């Protein structure tokens, strides 16, 4: 599959990091996005500006990375400003945040996200999850949102059990705008452990853009409940490069608490 062994998490983090552009303001969520942001900043995006819902702006997190904390001193190290949650979400609402990065439990064809519950009856959930956190804000307000999600059939569903955060809703043109959501926003990319998706400009349906080198289109779509559109030319996604893995494993997460271990370890 690749010359170097790597974990699913490592590939997801690298995919996400590669999507972060230099010189942009990026809203960083909890966990994997934090690692991806540090990785991007050390490689191709030294001038990206990290913002956190806890109010840190332009943080340059120290490594090795300390798990759990977003508001703690190591993560907020050498920030340009320490503000507060209402200020940061105001800046997102103003249109200042270029990109956000989110996880989710379920995603559907139109990029609607569920991180609240499973089951048909809200009042008797089959399984209850933490809920929105700041996800609803991110998918509502950021110009581009990247969803990082494990490539599992049960996660790619025809219709999410609960819309925690708004994608392109029912996919009709202008559905977000009609609902009062900010113009020209919505999910932009879905980065999984196997593939990369976007959303079709016209139909707003999820579209397969690339698969990990060594995998086929079928390998990706067979593990989804719905069939996405397929790009005319499906890209081959490189596995993590030695440089990416070195930074992840030596600088950022030497304990592999988040990036995970590989079979070789």
């Amino acid at each position: 599959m690749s010359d170097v062994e790597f974990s699913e998490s490592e590939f997801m983090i690298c995919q996400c990091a590669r999507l972060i552009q230099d010189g942009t303001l990026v809203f960083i969520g909890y966990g994997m996005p934090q690692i991806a942001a540090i990785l991007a900043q050390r490689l191709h995006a030294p001038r990206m500006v990290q913002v956190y819902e806890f109010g840190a702006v332009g943080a340059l997190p120290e490594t090795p990375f300390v798990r759990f904390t977003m508001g703690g001193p190591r993560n907020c190290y050498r920030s340009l400003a320490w503000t507060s949650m209402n200020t940061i979400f105001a800046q997102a609402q103003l249109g200042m945040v270029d990109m956000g990065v989110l996880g989710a439990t379920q995603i559907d064809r139109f990029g609607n996200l569920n991180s609240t519950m499973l089951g048909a009856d809200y009042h008797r959930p089959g399984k209850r999850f933490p809920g929105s956190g700041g996800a609803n804000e991110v998918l509502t307000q950021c110009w581009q949102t990247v969803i990082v999600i494990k490539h599992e059939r049960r996660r790619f569903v025809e219709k999410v059990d609960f819309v925690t955060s708004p994608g392109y809703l029912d996919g009709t043109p202008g559905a977000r705008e009609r609902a009062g959501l900010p113009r020209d926003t919505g999910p932009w990319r879905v980065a999984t452990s196997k593939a990369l998706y976007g959303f079709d400009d016209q139909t707003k349906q999820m579209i397969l853009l690339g698969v990990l080198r060594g995998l086929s289109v079928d390998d990706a779509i067979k593990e989804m409940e719905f069939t996405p559109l397929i790009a005319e030319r499906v890209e081959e996604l490189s596995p993590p490069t030695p440089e990416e893995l070195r930074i992840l494993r030596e600088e950022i997460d030497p304990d592999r608490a988040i990036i995970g271990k590989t079979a070789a370890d």
Partner: protein
Amino acid sequence: MDVLQAGIGEFSVTDPDDLRAFMRTEKRRAMVDKVMPEAEAVRRYVKDGDYVSFDFSSFTRGPASLVREIIRQRRRDLWFAAKFTLMETTLLAVGGCLRGVDVGFLGLGQLIGKWVQDGRIKVTEWTNGTLTLRHLAGAMGVPFLPTRNLLATDTLTYSGAKVVQDPFTGKPIALVPAVNPDVGLVHVHQCDIYGNARCFGPGVSPLETAMASKRTIISTEEIITTDEIRKEPSKTTIPYYMVDAVVYAPFGCLPGGTQGIYEMDIPHFLEFMGASRDEQKMAAYLDKYVYSVASHE
């Protein structure tokens, strides 16, 4: 006001006039010494059935020792604002203190999720941002604030927000109701005996929480003189008249950290997360860290 959609989640509105009447008579303008032990602060100001709010996070500058005291005093039927209470919501639930939570982020561990499934804990859906905005509305003395968040989601359906047509642009917009907690809990770096308090580092909403709450209990790493406060008034985060009780609690955030003073205790969190899957283990955890000790001191 023409309401296009109204969430059906359970929530209560404080009429700003009732709030004002409370603030007029119950918040002391005189500078009086408010330092007291945590047991007394919780006994005086936290009642069964209260809505309780918590500033910042389990990991950073959260008032963890005050939450443990609430569990120790076995308060019941509390409604808790769960934003970054990753740990505290679960602890309060296991301690039998909770009737429901505003989510935010429900918290870590499978137990709390299971109890929501069982209906043992009620939930109203919000988001981190809108729950914080509700505190800002509460702090501003207005009944609601507008936001473009929540729109077109089930989160809104099961919240207490309303969607109206903005009379200026004609577009739909969400209104979130103010929340005025019965009690706000804020941990601070420094304060004087009256409650003039300083928080350093990034934050969630210490001032909004203190202003919005009918009663505010602060726990502090350090008590400093009012002279110090007056030397650098820019550093004051919360003015004394918003504060009802000052609890001296160095390391009061543990196992979370306080910026610039101590980092979080990661092994403790791993222990907690191990326990949080299982009722028995959580009971043992509570025995070890809450019930078996008399106080934070």
